[in-house]
């Protein structure tokens, strides 16, 4: 690794350990991602993917270890709006009375005054983000009236409007058709090419080569962090999943 990459890690996790009572959810997890990377985070349910995300955004306090995002403490990174988060589909109330544009505007709230009243520049940033993810035509729809893939893109647009440096996506391909998946993959690749860093928790191993440059195999600890081809080798997957993983992946 070159010295420059060491200095500018977009995501840096060191020796992160999180326990829920007697249960060890994360055990000494260390991870470095350079800016402009798309990285897949692969692991079974209960492997600690969500816990890792929550520790990175500071929703969970780690028992030990530290996290740096863009070189900052998580709290500072949050205040500066560096962290964009795309929640799992199940975590969102899709009947909520907000439009697509409202959701994307929420990405600007950290930059706005106490009433979060949007200025012209904010409306322009939201419009640009919506155009970027090709949802400009649907901006005034209620968020639940979008398809699965469009919903995900709306939340990515929120991260774009936020000008987040680090984007965390939790299972963005669940319930999304193949074409939307491909659209999303190329969108994320373009964002990475523009210098953003994208970490995607996913079950979908088939989609991984198109999605990511590198991947992390997680099973409470980092089993392997490397190029996608290497991570996808059956012997490596077997360590993470303990069964024939491609069989399981093809069902989802």
């Amino acid at each position, binding site marked *: 690794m070159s010295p420059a990459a060491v200095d500018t890690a977009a995501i840096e996790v060191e020796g992160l350990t999180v326990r829920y009572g007697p249960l060890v959810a994360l055990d000494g997890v260390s991870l470095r991602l350079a800016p402009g990377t798309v990285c897949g985070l692969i692991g079974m349910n209960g492997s600690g993917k969500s816990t890792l995300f929550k520790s990175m*955004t*500071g*929703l969970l306090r780690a028992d030990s270890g530290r996290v740096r995002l863009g070189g900052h403490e998580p*709290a500072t990174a*949050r*205040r*500066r*709006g560096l*962290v*964009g*988060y795309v*929640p799992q589909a199940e*975590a*969102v*109330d899709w009947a*909520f*009375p*907000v*439009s697509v544009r*409202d*959701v994307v505007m*929420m*990405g600007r*709230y*950290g930059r706005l005054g*106490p*009433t*979060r*009243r949007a200025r012209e520049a904010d409306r322009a940033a939201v419009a640009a983000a919506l155009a970027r993810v090709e949802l400009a035509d649907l901006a005034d729809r*209620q968020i639940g009236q979008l398809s699965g893939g469009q919903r995900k893109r709306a939340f990515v647009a*929120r991260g774009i409007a*936020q000008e987040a440096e680090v984007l965390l996506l939790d299972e963005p391909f669940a319930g999304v058709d193949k074409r939307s998946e491909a659209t999303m993959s190329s969108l994320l690749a373009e964002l990475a090419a523009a210098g953003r860093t994208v970490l995607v928790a996913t079950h979908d191993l088939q989609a991984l080569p198109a999605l990511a440059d590198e991947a992390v195999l997680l099973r409470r600890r980092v089993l392997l962090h490397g190029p996608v081809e290497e991570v996808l080798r059956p012997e490596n997957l077997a360590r993470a999943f303990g069964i024939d993983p491609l069989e399981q992946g093809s069902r989802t």
Partner: protein
Amino acid sequence: MNPIDLIVEPLSYGFMVRALVTTVVAAVVCALLSCWLVLVGWSLMGDAVSHAVLPGVVLAYVLGAPFALGAVVFGFLAVGLIGAIRDTSRVKEDAAIGIVFTTLFALGLVLISVTPSQTDLNHIVFGNVLGVSVGDLVQVAALGAVVAAVLLYKRRDLVLYAFDPGHAHAIGLSPRRLGALLLGLLALTAVVALQVVGVILVVAMLILPGATAQLLTDRFSRMLLIAPVLSVVCATVGLYLSYWLDAAPGGLVVVTQGAAFALVYLFGPRHGLLTRRARRDGAAPPAAVGRVEG
């Protein structure tokens, strides 16, 4: 009797005018807050807090402190106790809510029974909108104005809190603080509304308008208009009904709001149960639609 008299005659009594103004203020404030409560999923919490403020209000009365202070203290105490029981025992949240609010409510009833001048305090339980004094009215209006102002000032943050607290946290806002703000406003609103319908029925005014508005629009900003308008209309109709039927005003306000919800639930233009069914059954030939309507 002509219709004008039906409306004007009750207003020749000072107590009816005070009752009407108090009811309208409470209806507006409750309706505004209810828009967030139904979206956050705090209906049960609203029920709990509105009951749990009773001992606080009684103690405030005894000590000569503002009702609002006692209500806020006991509102937070209730939520704290619910959280503590849920997190430190095997009792689930709904049971914890049931335990805490009924116990605090019962404590309030006990305090009322041992406090002199019982008549005054029993009005807190069932409401006594026809007996509202000018002083009560001023207190309700002042509290209502504060709650409405804070809600509208922080409305976007509170919507974000309701929709995606994870994102609120990720951009450096504090979901915990926003939740506490909403809770404080809930306790204050309970004080406003209990003048009208009493502690027992406050929760109805805190849920029905928002839930009804939610069925009528896909825009939060419109909910903030529809809910208060609907709530005021229903509350006024309820109050007039109580005058002409000589029946309990608090009860009739809530029954009217419940009837409005039922109408919207069944016939609402967007999400009404029968409306959707009619839409689904047809590319409905016009004749069939006519029959449903006729």
